[in-house]
């Protein structure tokens, strides 16, 4: 089955629209003489199989309504930044944007997950020119955004590799090493941010 039904096409259009909107926020920041908001963007539409699996796991009925309303990550974006300071700048830009509202925030940077995972997650409610699952136009769609630094992103890739490999010898040890590594990367992120602030500390005067 196609869990997204005839909304699948809209999801692809909205993904493009979202990409354009984020790029435009970045351009506005650059035009105002600020540093770029992010280093790069990544996005995906959750695959049919993953979405079906998720609905089953959460105990939702396997249908389009569950996929687009009860789940919030059919469309997922990553905003990958050079520095930690860039993350609140992106959040502020999203809060100021008139085409979306933030419906949920999770700060896994201040409160890292026990395994060392760090990222700032937000769920956006996006207003789009496309019909939504409730039949409204302009339609509302959820988009999950993960904001993180390059270091956090590399770490997450490594952790992802471990999670989906089942033949690792001594996974507890690898887990401990990953956690240590996450602490060291967080330390480097803070060090870079501090140096950057020291470089710019006289800019305001």
């Amino acid at each position: 089955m196609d869990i997204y039904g005839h909304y699948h096409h809209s999801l692809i259009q909205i993904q493009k629209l979202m990409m354009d909107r984020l790029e435009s926020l970045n351009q506005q920041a650059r035009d105002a003489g600020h540093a770029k908001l992010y280093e790069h963007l990544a996005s995906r539409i959750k695959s049919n199989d993953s979405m079906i699996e998720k609905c089953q796991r959460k105990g939702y009925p396997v249908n389009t309504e569950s996929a687009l309303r009860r789940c919030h990550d059919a469309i997922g974006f990553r905003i990958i930044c050079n520095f930690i300071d860039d993350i609140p700048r992106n959040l502020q830009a999203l809060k100021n944007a008139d085409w979306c509202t933030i419906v949920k925030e999770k700060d896994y940077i201040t409160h890292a997950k026990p395994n060392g995972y760090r990222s700032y997650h937000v769920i956006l409610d996006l207003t789009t020119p496309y019909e939504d699952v409730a039949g409204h136009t302009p339609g509302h769609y959820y988009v999950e955004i993960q904001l993180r630094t390059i270091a956090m992103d590399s770490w997450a890739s490594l952790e992802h590799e471990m999670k989906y490999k089942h033949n690792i010898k001594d996974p507890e040890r690898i887990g401990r090493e990953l956690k240590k590594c996450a602490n060291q990367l967080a330390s480097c992120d803070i060090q870079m941010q501090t140096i950057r602030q020291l470089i710019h500390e006289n800019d305001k005067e």
Partner: protein
Amino acid sequence: MRILLAEDNSQLRRVIVAALKTSQYIVDAVTNGQEAVDHAKQHPYDVMILDIMMPVKDGLEALREIRAAGDRTYVIMLTALSEIDDKVNGLDAGADDYLTKPFSLKELLARLRSLERRFDSLDEDVLKFGNITLDGNEQVLKSENSISLSSKESRLLQYLILNAGKELSSQTLLNQTWDDDDEHADNEDVWINVPYFRQKLQAVNANVTLAGPKGGPYQLIEREKPNA
């Protein structure tokens, strides 16, 4: 603890070995300075006890060679009672302590116990202040979150916690935390670590801050309320 004993007097050697073994120490006993040097090269020791007057190679020469090889093991010299010069030469050659002959076994064992306490306390490198925990072995700062510290930061924070609430000058921190070989370190080096600390304390949501203006004095204080 594993101990290397170099003593050429066989009767004294036997007595010391027996006393050390009774105290559950592992002992390697040798009879001259050259054997001491050879053993020091081959095995890891926690303490070395070296007599000064020995055949083949005396204790001072053995000690110099051991130190020249980069060995930092704690060394106790056994010196003759009257010879101040032996004590001075021994300490200058790199000894950490000395005992004058004749010495009591009780005193030797008490000194070893004191050393053991010192070694153990170095391993207990976990300090707490406010809602933060510093794990000096892992060089990690923990609170609601955790973050790595550099070795300098770890030493600095250890000193700050042990002296929490006191106003500490930049110079004091410099003397305490920077190695003697780092001659170029100055107050600016101390200062650059202050914003690192502030950011890291904030990153783990600590209720502890490092107060003080640029140039010091600095003071580690616990805030009333944790970070919002």
